[in-house]
């Protein structure tokens, strides 16, 4: 295992310290793995989080116009309820807190327990569960779809609504509208290595790729032969198209997310094809975001997220945000 780290045990602690050192608008709640805005808002607060290893998620989205707090678990491990509770307590201004959870058993269980504890303290807590990954057909498995990179759109748009002073119920409804309208799918060229395990999360031959990959190094839905970037984009897009209910003339936002080790050049090569496909279906691409938004350590690969916009979602997506990883 070749990584830039000190000790496996201090990985998350070290990265959070380095993050706070870099970004003066972030504050770490002492004794926790929680990052919050240095200046507390007087509005509905958004808390998200999950395992570490997804950087810039989730701490990178804490800041004006997006999240108020981000809770970091161990690498790829949902954070514990006490940490989530600490985040909720720190960011609540009395206007209530919306939890943005990705649909994984671990995240759900821990966030729900924290929500119960916070409610018991009289804090208004609501939650939404992001399940944008169309690789997993929600109807076959009762767990439903996973949450992956499309979550960043939820942070951005619900964050803008909260920043604009909307009440909790409205912010939640907007978050749910984003969730209903965002569809994603990813693939991997190479696995990643969780520091604590020291082993690659799976093995792939030189001419194989994983399709339908999650964001925790877990294998995807199946393997396919390596082929041209455009053909890979075609495969992911067809899956998304089949689920997304898009129609000619729809306005969309696109997120091309690198999983950690994919050069930006390759993301742009993928975007070239994606844009051609969107244009061919007569979709109106309002904005395209290319970069690393929700990663799996040093996994090579990428995901595509397509968000169908209405006028309000578009306005909120374009609204100002100023966080370490998202400025608009």
């Amino acid at each position, binding site marked *: 295992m070749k990584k830039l780290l000190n000790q496996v045990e201090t990985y998350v602690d070290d990265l959070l310290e380095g993050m706070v050192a870099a970004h003066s608008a972030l504050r770490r709640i002492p004794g926790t793995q929680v990052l919050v805005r240095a200046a507390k808002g007087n509005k509905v607060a958004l808390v998200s989080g999950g395992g570490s290893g997804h950087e810039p998620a989730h701490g990178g989205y804490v800041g004006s116009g997006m999240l108020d707090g981000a809770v970091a678990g*161990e690498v*790829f*491990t949902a954070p514990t309820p006490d940490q989530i509770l600490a985040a909720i307590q720190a960011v609540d201004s009395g206007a209530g807190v919306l939890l943005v959870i990705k649909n994984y*058993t*671990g995240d759900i*269980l821990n966030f729900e327990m924290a929500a119960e504890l916070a409610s018991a303290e009289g804090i208004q807590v609501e939650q939404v569960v992001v399940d944008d990954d169309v690789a997993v057909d929600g109807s076959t498995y009762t767990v439903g779809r996973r949450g992956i990179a499309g979550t960043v759109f939820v942070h951005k748009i619900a964050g803008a609504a909260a920043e604009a002073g909307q009440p909790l119920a409205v912010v939640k409804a907007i978050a749910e509208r984003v969730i209903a309208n965002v569809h994603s799918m990813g693939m991997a060229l190479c696995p990643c290595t*969780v520091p604590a395990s020291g082993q690659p999360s799976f093995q792939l031959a030189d001419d194989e790729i994983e399709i339908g990959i999650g964001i*925790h190094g877990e294998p995807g839905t199946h393997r396919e032969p390596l082929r041209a970037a455009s053909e890979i984009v075609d495969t992911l897009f067809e899956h998304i198209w089949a689920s997304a209910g898009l129609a000619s003339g729809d306005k969309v936002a696109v997120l091309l997310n690198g999983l950690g080790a994919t050069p930006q050049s390759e993301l742009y090569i993928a975007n070239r094809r994606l844009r051609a496909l969107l244009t061919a279906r007569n979709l109106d691409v309002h904005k395209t975001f290319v970069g690393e938004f929700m990663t799996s350590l040093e996994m090579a690969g990428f995901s595509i997220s397509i968000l169908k916009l209405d006028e309000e979602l578009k306005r909120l997506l374009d609204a100002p945000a100023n966080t370490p990883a998202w400025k608009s």
Partner: protein
Amino acid sequence: MLTTETFATFIANYARRLADLQETLNTLDNNIGDGDHGTNMARGFKAAAEQLAAKPATDVGGACNTVGMALLGSVGGASGPLYATVFMRFATAWKGMTSVDATNFAAGIAAALEGLQTRGKADVGDKTMIDVWHPVNQTLQNVRETTTLQAIVETADTAALATKQRIAKKGRAAYLGERSAGHCDPGSISSAVLFEELVDATIGGVERKPWPKLAL
């Protein structure tokens, strides 16, 4: 007999077993999940054993509560709230007892199973730790002699290995669909080991299975 003292031994021994089995459990989780189950369990029960040693309980229920809280604050993931629930349910079932008789023991296991299902909403056969806790509970309904607790170890071991052929319907492995078949469920294996250590601390004489060889 499960007493305040043998319970502490159980936790200390289980923590040690998990440290030894950490890589095996991680590899199992790598196959069909995200590779952290060994790390999660080892971290959690190390914390639990330390907290129990630092603040010894005066009854089994109290000790269970300490363990449950330690797990809740240190594990995370899916297994954290689930194993924490197990020990919280034990804590309620065995509250105030300095020794747990066969009937109460069975009641505790039943309560734990009920707690797991309420939290995780998994059914038997979904390829989760429920696949171990459920048959263990059934065995206990039939065999109520403390001296035959040995039977639940066999049940748990067999059930854990039987998860291998199943297709996961809950938890992270569910996203693999049919690819999840052919690999044992890591949480079921860690549960089987839990029963080995729980029964050994209670009545002794349990033979530890060679899990790296059996499960991988």
